[in-house]
């Protein structure tokens, strides 16, 4: 086959994917960008909806709230997921591993909304945690756990720990045992082996999982809406608020574009680790 024919065949092969991307990503994105520049009720193009974001404290706070919550979720999820993945990869016996992995993905089998409402019941004043703490005398009266940032983060972490565990587990399983053996032969302690050998080699898996966690959490509406109790607004809630009664799609589009910029920046920050091939 000539080079020209090969090139044409290549384009033909990827054309469905390109068409799909153009139809369902590029065109909607362009439409959204254009919409964001034509504020509701205005007679022409304007960046008023972007200006509003940077001049209105409560809009800006939605972004800082989102970044704070998402960062905490990502950090806690990684800190919890890594030991889980380690235990699954190296400590759980081979014959139990499949069952352990199945248990790890079990939460994914429940609807996301149902799971969030379940957490609301667990964290409520009459819920399992408060009742237990009051009954064993740790608390004299229930404390507010539901409808707080704590509740939002708990709901998120519960979901994303599982996602991260699987990502890191896959990474750990790919590591040849020879790395650990070689480090031990060279006199490294288990802690030194972990810090100087294992951790750097599993960093791509951690970063992929952390990036996915960040992207999925920062754009999520359900969990903060159900568990956070609207005591503070995150970006997705602010976006939804623009649409609910007023149908202000221009403002909602501008806020969505800003959220996409944040995700893009997060991608660029993690890009060096987000590679498919192993070095």
């Amino acid at each position: 086959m000539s080079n020209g024919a090969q090139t044409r065949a290549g384009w033909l092969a990827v054309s469905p994917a390109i068409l799909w991307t153009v139809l369902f990503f590029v065109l909607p994105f362009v439409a959204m960008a254009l919409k964001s520049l034509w504020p509701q009720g205005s007679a022409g193009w304007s960046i008023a909806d972007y200006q509003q974001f940077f001049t209105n404290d409560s809009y800006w706070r939605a972004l800082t709230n989102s970044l704070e919550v998402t960062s905490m979720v990502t950090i806690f999820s990684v800190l919890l997921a890594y030991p889980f993945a380690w235990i699954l990869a190296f400590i759980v016996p081979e014959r139990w591993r499949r069952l352990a992995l199945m248990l790890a993905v079990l939460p994914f089998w429940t609807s996301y909304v149902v799971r969030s409402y379940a957490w609301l019941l667990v964290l409520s004043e009459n819920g399992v945690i408060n009742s237990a703490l009051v009954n064993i005398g740790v608390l004299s009266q229930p404390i507010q756990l539901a409808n707080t940032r704590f509740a939002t983060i708990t709901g998120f972490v519960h979901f994303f720990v599982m996602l991260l565990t699987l990502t890191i587990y896959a990474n750990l399983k790919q590591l040849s045992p020879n790395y650990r053996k070689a480090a031990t032969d060279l006199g490294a302690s288990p802690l030194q082996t972990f810090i100087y050998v294992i951790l750097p080699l599993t960093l791509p898996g951690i970063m992929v999982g952390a990036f996915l966690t960040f992207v999925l959490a920062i754009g999520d509406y359900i969990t903060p809406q159900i568990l956070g109790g609207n005591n503070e607004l995150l970006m997705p809630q602010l976006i939804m608020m623009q649409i609910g009664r007023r149908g202000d799609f221009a403002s909602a589009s501008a806020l969505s574009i800003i959220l996409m910029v944040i995700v893009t920046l997060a991608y660029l920050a993690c890009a060096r680790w987000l590679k498919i091939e192993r070095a």
Partner: protein
Amino acid sequence: MRYSLKTQLAGGALSLLLMTGTALATDLNALIWCDHSDPALLKPFEDANGIKVNVKEFEGTGAGLAIVDQSKPGDWDVMVIDSIDVPKGVAKGLFAPLPEDKLPMADLFPEVRLDAKTMADGKRYGITEKFGYNTIGYNKSKVDVRDMQSLAVLTDPKYKGRVAIYDYYLPVIGMAAMSIGKKTSELTEADLPALKDVLLKMKANAKAVTDVAASQTALATGEADILVGGGEWVTAGIAKDKPDLDFSIPKEGAVLWSQSLAMFKDSKNKDMALKFIQYIMSPDGQARLATSACYWGMPSNSKASLNDDQKKTLRFAEQPDFLKRAQGYPAPNDALDKNMQDLWTAVLQAK
């Protein structure tokens, strides 16, 4: 066998049409709130007319009108809409005039006809089908019922941490306005700073700001003892299981909510659409709508065939007094509406 590109495209389009399914021309397509999806409400109408009512639920006028914008003219036959937002649909040229002589206008509670909103140029475009109050919902076993007779309770430190606020800025701003002696219909930009002060005090006193489902859950589970913006729409539907839940109309008054039915100008099934509206406005339809599984509310037809228990739960006999003291939703122009929403955003973000 080879097919031309045109043939293949046509085939593909037909397959897509079949896959997505299309409503039959004899069906009625209704853009509704959740109270209209109750089979107990729809089935008698479907059985009587031998048709299927296809419903699409939405929350918020903006979301509803967005669905209409994304649809073809004629896709929808009827719509449920906030009565104060009927003019928005009229301004967009969506609605058809309704024949008053074929509707039970004389039987409606006069205070909920809301002609200023549901009529334009002497023609009726919406008919109020259900109403109620955004007021103080509470658990009478947990609070002093006498305290619930004044809106001052909303900022009373006595109930700090025991209050939930319904997350909808218009009625809650209306309640804040009434608590400082302002009329909901006369609010202007100049009132916003004073309203913000009240709302911030309310937020500081509250445990949570909750959406529709969470509001009901908060009162029902004891998470909150008082719901700002609550009313019969929260308490009546669960009154059998939670008899301690009740609502008051404080001395300052309450905010009247009302929902209307409108018929689309481009409906392909106007006769059936009108029949549907007539059914909903009939005594039986009104009773079923008022006691719908999603939420209860007062029927706007005073002759609704509710039984005694249902009337008692809805406090039917007290309505003349309630209506006398109620004020309508704030109905701001677009600029003030935007500023009210921003005010609400600032209140939600306050620490």
